[in-house]
């Protein structure tokens, strides 16, 4: 079985509130999977469960070959996570940040050095790597954050709105990098609000009020609802779902 992520009826309740309501999905190895949904749909909660940060209330799943309930600590070594918040230390330089995160994943010495060089080449970090991370322009920070997340060559990379607040050129370059990673066999699990980005994904799921209401390739979904593009499809789906209840 070479699926990177498999979840069945995954549910998370916070008290009376059901943040994630019995979702099931499967992501193949090397796939770029778009995880869409309106704000508050439960995407971040779902990702946290997949990353082993949060235990589900019910349901089960396997990520990178590990059980998300029993082996959530093992999952952490096999995945990379880039959150929507800027998650590097602003007072440390880019390199210090990379060294720090690399060491947490057990990289050290020559191996760490080689990985930092390779990541910095892939992301064209150049001389930005020696500046305090807090002083970098937003686009460069995001690249650096991606660098920190892929240093240990994770099998699966979770990206939670990785391109928020970044200009279109940076976003395009960022996605080029993601494609390179996918080509090398990394599975990418991406949340985004940009529908043009969603169309870069091989398959997408659309989540609303904790449930997955649609799942398939962007083309199939657009065709199914007879809309001009993904943006209109997304909006009409969410509105229709709201009206139904």
């Amino acid at each position, binding site marked *: 079985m070479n699926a990177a992520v498999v979840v069945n009826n995954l549910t998370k309740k916070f008290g009376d509130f059901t943040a994630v309501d019995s979702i099931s999905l499967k992501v193949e190895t090397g796939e770029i999977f778009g995880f869409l949904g309106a704000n508050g749909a439960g995407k971040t909660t779902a990702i946290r469960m997949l990353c082993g*940060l949060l235990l589900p209330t019910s349901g089960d799943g396997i990520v990178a070959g590990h059980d998300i309930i029993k082996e959530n600590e093992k999952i*952490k070594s096999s995945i990379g*996570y880039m959150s929507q918040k800027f*998650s590097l230390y602003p007072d*440390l330089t880019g390199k210090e940040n990379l060294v720090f995160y690399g060491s*947490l994943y057990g990289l050290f010495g020559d191996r760490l050095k080689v990985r930092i060089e390779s990541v910095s080449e892939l992301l064209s970090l150049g001389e930005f790597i020696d500046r305090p991370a807090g002083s970098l322009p937003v686009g460069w920070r995001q690249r650096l954050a991606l660098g920190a997340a892929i240093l240990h060559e994770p099998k699966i990379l979770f990206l939670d709105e990785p391109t928020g607040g970044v200009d279109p050129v940076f976003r395009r370059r960022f996605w080029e990098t993601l494609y390179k990673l996918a080509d090398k066999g990394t599975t990418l699990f991406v949340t985004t609000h940009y529908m043009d980005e969603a169309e870069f994904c091989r398959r997408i799921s659309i989540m609303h009020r904790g449930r997955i209401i649609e799942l398939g390739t962007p083309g199939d979904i657009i065709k199914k609802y007879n809309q001009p593009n993904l943006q209109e499809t997304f909006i009409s789906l969410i509105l229709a779902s709201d009206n139904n209840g």
Partner: protein
Amino acid sequence: MGKIVTIAVKEVRHILRDRRSLFIALMMPVLMTLLYGYAVNLDINNIKLAVLDYDNSSESRELINRFYHSGYFIQSQSRPELSDPEKVLKLTDAIAVMIIRPGFSKAVIDRSEFQVGMLIDGADANMSSAASSYSAVIFNQFLISQMPPETVIPGVTLSLQVLYNPDLKSSHFFVPGLVAVILMMISALLTSITIAREKETGTMEQLLTSPVTPRQIIMGKVIPYIGLAILDGVFVYVFAVWHFGVPMIGSAVLLLIIGVIYIIASLSLGVLISTLVNTQQLAMMAALTATMLPSVMLSGFIFEIKNMPAVLQVITHAIPARYFIQVIRGIMLKGAGLEVLWPQAVALMIITLILLGLAAKKFKIKIG
């Protein structure tokens, strides 16, 4: 272990790069010591004394001299036209008025009965009780000096002696307590802020997605602050000994060992606070409230625990500063060792273990 070191190294970088916070962390204890050392001064001296001397003899002048040279009394505003002692108290800045009627010197020589009047303003209770006890002592010393050397004083005399702080200097009493208050405050404040900062900026989430356990994160982040707190403790200690002349009779090593336990308790409290709040600002306010007030009011730092209402006395048992203040005073002023201070040391260890356990447990659940 390697990961703890990695996190600790990163934390040291944060501490060293943030020069302003480092400066505050190192200077605040010294400034606080200075402020508290001088402001919280319960020594009563410079009591303003007026004298109405109607005897005007060498004996009366000798008595007056003894008062003014005691270090406790100074001359009040001079208003020679006033002859009513009550008016002197009301109209001048005098706190006490001594009235020596004619016949004083004769009575001293004859050993006959005589009363010297002493009128004390009772508005400030501390000041007036100090004034009355000081004047009694000075008066007795005067009487003894006036007796011929061969006189045998019949009966029992009271020999009053003050132990441990013979100068009765309140700075000797307060400054060691200050070490306890400052260590508690600084340690809890700095750790709660540094952890809250990672939660606020989102780096904590990033850390937790990597293969490190919450325990490793806490350890790595807290260890550098043990060093910083010890440095602060040494600063305040040196300041106490050099500047305020607080004696150090006991073992510095024992003080350091128990001090480290106390610091760990304080740091754990900081970690515990940081699990309950999500912003640095809240962390700061919570840490100050949780440490400052109890450590100052309920630890015996200023107010005697045995004079507190029973309910408060029970509460003081949960305040780590209570035990450390007893330890540091015991070691510095009395030279006490572990044979005396073991109950305090054990109590501190128990509190430390409870706080550490709670912090570790809470930290795990909260990030879920």
